[in-house]
C-alpha cells in the first residue's frame, strides 16, 4: 500500500461522486488534448515543407467548421457544467438530521466544540455514516477547512458563519489542511479527522465528558453576561422571550422578515440594532468585543436548544 492511499481514499459520500466527475474530465481532456495534438503532428509532418503530399486549394474559412467548433465544445461544456453544478448543489444542501459541530479557526489552529461540550484542538472525532454539519467561523483572518479524503473544502471567514456538510463513509484518520493562506504558519495549520464507528464514537464521547453540553454552557453564559436580566422569564424589561425563536421567522422593525438562524443570533448579540425585532425598543447593548467566538457559539447552542425542546414533536 502506497503512501498515497489515504489521500486517494474516498472517505465521504461525496468523494466517489467527485471522483467520477474528475474521471470524466480526465477522459475528455485526454481525448481532446491527445486528439488535437495528434492532428497537429499529422498535419505538420505530412505537409512539412518540401513533402510530396498533395496540397491543392483549401478554403480560407468554412461555416460548417465554425459551427462545429462552437457547437461541439458548447455541448461538452454544458454537460460538464450541469453535472458539476448538480453535485455542488448537493454538497451545499445539508442532509436532514445532521450532527452540528462548531469550528473556530484562528492563526494557526482549529478549535472544535461538540454539542455535548467536548472540545478538541486540531482533531475532529466523528462517527461514520452520520451526516455532519460544521458551523465555522474565524477569530482573525480567512482560513479554509480542507479534507482531501472527503473532497470537500470551505473557507472560514471572520465575522460570519459558513457551513460545511458531509457524510463520512469510512473509518480511519484523515488529514485536515488549512487551504487558504493565513500567515506565518499556514502550512502547519493542520489536523486530523478521526472517523470512528458509532460505538467507538460514543465511547470517545463518554471518555471526554467536557464541561457539560454546549447548550448548558451557553445557559450559564446567558446568566453570566446578564442576558437573562432582560430575556429571562422573570425579567421586567420589555425584551423578546427567546423560547421557540430559533429556526423561525422574525418580523423586524423595518418591516422585513428574517429567519432566526445562527447568523441572526450572532448579529443580535454583536450588532443588536442592525436587526431590531418589531415591537421592541433597541435597548439591547452590543456585546462586541466582550464575547469570544466560542462563547457566541455556545449562546447560539443554548438559544437553539430552547426551541428544539419545545418544537420537537
Amino acid at each position: 500500500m502506497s503512501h498515497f492511499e489515504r489521500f486517494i481514499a474516498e472517505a465521504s459520500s461525496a468523494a466517489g461522486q467527485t471522483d467520477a466527475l474528475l474521471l470524466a474530465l480526465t477522459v475528455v481532456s485526454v481525448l481532446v488534448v491527445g486528439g488535437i495534438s495528434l492532428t497537429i503532428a499529422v498535419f505538420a509532418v505530412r505537409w512539412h515543407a518540401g513533402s510530396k503530399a498533395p496540397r491543392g486549394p483549401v478554403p480560407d474559412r468554412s461555416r460548417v467548421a465554425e459551427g462545429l467548433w462552437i457547437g461541439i465544445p458548447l455541448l461538452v461544456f454544458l454537460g460538464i457544467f450541469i453535472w458539476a453544478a448538480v453535485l455542488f448543489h448537493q454538497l451545499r444542501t445539508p442532509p436532514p438530521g445532521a450532527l452540528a459541530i462548531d469550528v473556530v479557526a484562528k492563526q494557526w489552529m482549529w478549535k472544535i466544540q461538540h454539542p455535548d461540550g467536548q472540545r478538541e484542538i486540531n482533531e475532529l472525532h466523528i462517527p461514520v455514516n452520520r451526516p455532519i454539519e460544521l458551523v465555522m467561523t474565524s477569530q482573525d483572518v480567512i482560513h479554509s477547512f480542507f479534507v482531501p479524503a472527503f473532497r470537500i473544502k470551505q473557507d472560514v471567514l471572520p465575522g460570519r458563519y459558513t457551513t460545511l456538510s458531509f457524510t463520512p463513509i469510512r473509518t480511519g484518520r484523515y488529514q485536515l489542511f488549512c487551504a487558504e493562506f493565513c500567515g506565518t504558519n499556514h502550512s502547519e495549520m493542520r489536523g486530523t479527522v478521526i472517523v470512528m464507528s458509532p460505538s467507538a464514537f460514543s465511547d470517545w464521547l463518554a471518555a471526554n465528558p467536557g464541561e457539560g453540553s454546549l447548550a448548558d454552557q451557553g445557559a450559564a453564559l446567558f446568566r453570566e453576561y446578564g442576558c437573562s436580566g432582560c430575556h429571562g422569564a422573570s425579567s421586567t424589561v420589555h425584551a423578546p422571550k427567546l423560547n421557540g425563536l430559533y429556526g423561525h421567522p422574525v418580523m423586524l422593525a423595518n418591516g422585513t422578515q428574517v429567519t432566526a438562524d445562527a447568523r441572526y443570533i450572532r448579529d443580535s448579540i454583536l450588532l443588536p440594532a442592525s436587526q431590531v425585532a418589531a415591537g421592541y425598543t433597541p435597548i439591547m447593548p452590543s456585546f462586541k468585543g466582550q464575547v469570544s467566538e466560542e462563547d457566541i457559539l455556545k449562546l447560539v447552542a443554548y438559544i437553539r436548544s430552547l426551541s428544539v425542546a419545545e418544537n420537537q414533536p
Partner: protein
Amino acid sequence: MTTIAAEGAPSYISAGYTLRSWLTTRDHKRIALLYGVSILFFFLVAAAAAAMIRLELLTPAGDLVDDDTYNKLFTVHGVVMVWFFLIPSIPSTFGNFLIPLMIGAKDVAFPRLNLASWYIYTLGGLFVVVTLIAGGVDTGWTFYTPYTTMFSNSHVILAVTGVFIVGFSSIFTGLNFIVTVHQMRAPGMTWFRLPLFVWAHYATSLVMVLATPVLAMTLALIAIERLLGVGIFDPALGGDPLLFQHLFWFYSHPAVYIMILPAMGVVSEVITCFSRKPVFGYQFMVYSLLAIAAVGFMVWGHHMFVSGQSMYAGMVFSLLSFLVAIPSAIKVFNWTATLYKGSVRFDAPMLYALGFIGLFMMGGITGIWLAALAADVHLTDTYFVVAHFHYIMVGGAVMAFFSALHFWWPKVTGRLYPDGWARAGAIVMFVGFNLTFFPQYIAGYLGMPRRYHVYPPEFQVLNVLSSGGAVVLGVGYLLPLLYLWWSLRRGRLAGANPWGATGLEWQTPSPPPTYNFASAPRVEGPPYAYQAGGTDGR
C-alpha cells in the same frame, strides 16, 4: 554594433548612442527595448525566487528558509512575475515595437505618453525593489483581506504602492494602442486587413484600460485601511472581505487575458508564416479575440467558489467561465486547420509556437476542471491550480514570448541567431516545463495545498520531480540568453525579410529606420497572403 541602414537612413539604433538619446527617446522601437531590458531584470528577480521555492520544496521540512521567508518568496515571485514581467511582457516590448510597423505608421499616437509609461513602470518597479530591500511582503499576490489590511507585519503598503503605480503604465500603454490602431493606420489598412497580432493587442488594450483602474482603486483602499484602521473590507468593522475578492478578481481574471491574448497574437503570426498559409477563418479569429476580452469580464467569481460566495452566484460564474473557453477553443482549432495542406517548416519560432498550442491546451482544459463547481471544491487552493496557471502562463505565454523573440529578433537587431541552438533551446524548455509542472497536477489532486512551506512527506517524490524539472527549465531559459547575446555581435546579417513573411514590418530594413518607412506604405490586400507550397523567399 554595426547595422545596415536603408539607403543611408540611419536605423533606430544608430540614431544616437548616448544614454541620453535612449532615456529621452520617443521612438516606439527604442521604448520597446527599454522595456525589454527592464522586464528581463524583473524576470530574473522572480525566477530567482522560483528557484528558492523549488529548492525549499525538495524536502518536506522547512529547512532552507523559515516560514515567513518562504511566504515572502512566493509573494514576490507572484507579484513580480504577474505585474512586472508577464503583463507588460509582450505588449510593451513586441507590441510597442511592432504595432506601428504593422499598421504602416511612423509611431504610436502618443509617443510622449509611451515614454512616460516606461518611467512609470520603472518607478513602480523601484517600489518593489525597495520593498524587497526593506524586508519583503508576505500576503500572496492576491492580497486577501483582512490578512493584508490588519494582520500582516510586512511591507504591504510599499508593495501595494508599487503595483498601483505600475497599473498606470499598463493603462497608458493600452490607451496608446487603442488610439494608435484607430487613428494611425496606413492608407488601405482596413480593420479586416490588420494582422491578428494587432487585433490581439487591441483586445488586450481594452482589458488594460477597463480593468486596471479597478485594481488600482482597490489597492488604494487597502493602503488606506491599513493606515487608518478603517475601511470597507474589515469584518471587525462591519466591512466585508469578500468585497475585496470581488474587486480584486474583477481585475485579475481579465488580467489573465491581458497575459494570453498577446501570446495568441504572436502565435497566429508565426503559424501562418511557417505553414505558408493564410490563417484559417480570419474573421472568426478576430471575433474570438474580442469575445475573450469582453466575456472575460464576467467570470471572476470562479476564483471564489468556496469563499463564502452564494451558491447561485457560483453557478452563474461557472457557466460563464465555460462560455469564455469557447473562443479559446476556436482559436486552437483554427490554428490546427491552418497547418492543413500548408508547407510547414520547423524553425525555432515555430517550435515554440507549437509548444504553446499544446501547453496552452493543457492549461486551458484544466481551467475547465476548475470552472466545474464540484471539481473545484476539491482542487481549489491546491497545487492543481498552481499547475493550471503555470501551464497557461509559463507554458503558454512565456513560450509565446520566446516564439516572438526568435521570430522578430532579426527585425529588432538585424542579426540571425544560430538555428540549431535555438531549436535545442525550445526542446529543452518544453521538456523541462512538463517535468516541472505536470507532477503538480497530481500533487494537487492528491490534496497538497498551495502556499505550503512544509508539507506532508507523502508528497516528496512529486516535489523532487518538480524541482528537478525546474533545473532543466532554468537551463532552457538560460540557453537563449547566451546564443542571442552571441548573435548580437557575431550573428549573420538578417536582411529585411529573413522568413519570407508577409506583413508590413518585413518591408522595411532590419533594424528599421527611425520613422519606420521611407514613404508611407499603401496596403492593397488581405493579411497573410502566403502561397502554400510556394517558394518562401529564401
